[in-house]
């Protein structure tokens, strides 16, 4: 693996910054729980982006100052947030109409696995003793105009999370359009996996060796 020795993996914040670059001025965005939440910290200051959270708020601002948390004002991860001028509240059916009706421009989700054609598995490991919990994952995956995934390129065991077919239970079929890993930005869809960008010091061939599906050059 001498062709990967000089590579610099992207940190979680660098991944978040890279996602943020692809979010256009004026976009309405839903950031999933966990890694995707970091994207909010990296949105370019010269772009006005509206953050939606499925529990019933749009126009979310940054985390409140310590001591100013109000637990009636939380995001989908149940963390206290703030409201920007122009933001508002709504009930759950309206909130999911925003998602499911195609009114949200970009949704960023975490994942266990994504297939080359954009199938997503991110809600359930399928382990016999696991207690399943789905939340809004299936609605978010299929409802937004574009669904992006942020995930590590490899599992802790070193296996590719970009797979020919998901082995974990599916969240949605052909719903992901782009994935951001700690090694690369890759478009997925009917035409398969196309590498948009990779980390410095990592050759295309080395990336291919780490990835379980055939990669194409952009």
């Amino acid at each position, binding site marked *: 693996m001498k062709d990967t020795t000089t590579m610099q993996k992207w940190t979680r914040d660098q991944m978040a910054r890279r996602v943020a670059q692809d979010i256009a001025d004026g976009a309405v965005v839903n950031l999933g729980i966990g890694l995707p939440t970091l994207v909010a910290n990296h949105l370019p200051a010269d772009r006005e982006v509206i953050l939606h*959270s*499925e*529990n*019933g*708020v749009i126009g979310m601002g940054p985390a409140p100052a*310590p*001591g*100013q*948390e*109000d*637990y*009636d*004002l*939380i995001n989908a991860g*149940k963390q206290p947030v703030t*409201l920007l001028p122009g933001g508002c*509240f*709504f*009930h*759950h*059916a309206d*909130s*999911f109409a925003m*998602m*499911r009706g195609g009114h949200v421009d970009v949704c960023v989700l975490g994942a266990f696995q994504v297939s080359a054609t954009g199938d997503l598995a991110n809600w*359930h490991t399928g382990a016999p*003793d696991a*207690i*399943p*919990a*789905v*939340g*809004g*994952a*299936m*609605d978010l995956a*299929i*409802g937004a105009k574009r669904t992006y995934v942020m995930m590590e390129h490899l599992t802790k065991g070193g296996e590719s999370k970009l797979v020919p077919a998901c082995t974990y*239970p*599916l*969240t*949605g*079929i052909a719903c992901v359009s782009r994935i951001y890993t700690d090694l690369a930005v890759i478009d997925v869809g009917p035409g398969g996996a196309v590498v948009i960008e990779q980390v410095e010091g990592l050759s295309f061939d080395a990336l291919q060796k780490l990835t379980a599906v055939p990669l194409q050059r952009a």
Partner: protein
Amino acid sequence: MIDKTCPSAAAALADVPDGATVMIGGFGTAGQPNELIDALIEQGARHLTIVNNNAGNGDTGLAALLAAGRVRKIICSFPRQADSHHFDRLYREGKLELELVPQGNLAERIRAAGAGIGGFFTPTSYGTLLAEGKESREINGRMHVLEFPIHADYALIKAERGDRWGNLTYRMTARNFGPIMATAAKTTVATVHELVPLGTLDPEAVVTPGLFVQRVVQVARTATVGAGFKTA
């Protein structure tokens, strides 16, 4: 004269029978009607079917109702959480039936019940475990899954202000399931922190019109801020 106000949470829930389906508002603890859940535990109804987004946090509220062994089945989207130990134990012991529903389907099935809709097709969950055994159909070139409404005997919700007709407003993201659950139950019981005379609530800003609400109980305001309650 119409007066939907009740003197206490206990009085508002006195007639809940064993086997009732009870919707409980809240997303996590925001909007969870704790006083009504405590009164339901005290009241003693058993074999309940509960509809909530989650399956209880910590040891209070919905978690306490589960721990008291009053619930037969829970319909929810996100039971597993860091502090859902009562649910986890009962589920693993086979003492609690779980119907896991994608959150958007949960909301829309409740809305459908309230609006008199007999069912709807949605792309959500198509091709997944949660669509197994359900009718599907291609509509406008996309596969959809048939989902049915969720009706309830009671809805227990937390609002912010209300009047004797049952008109309600909410506070920030504590609104969540309140307005739709209010429409889907035969008897909706709402707690409010302020009970105001008719005509006080801005008619342009009433969120739940009173006809969806049967009982209103005033409860003390509880702190939602680290440093105490901050007025909205």
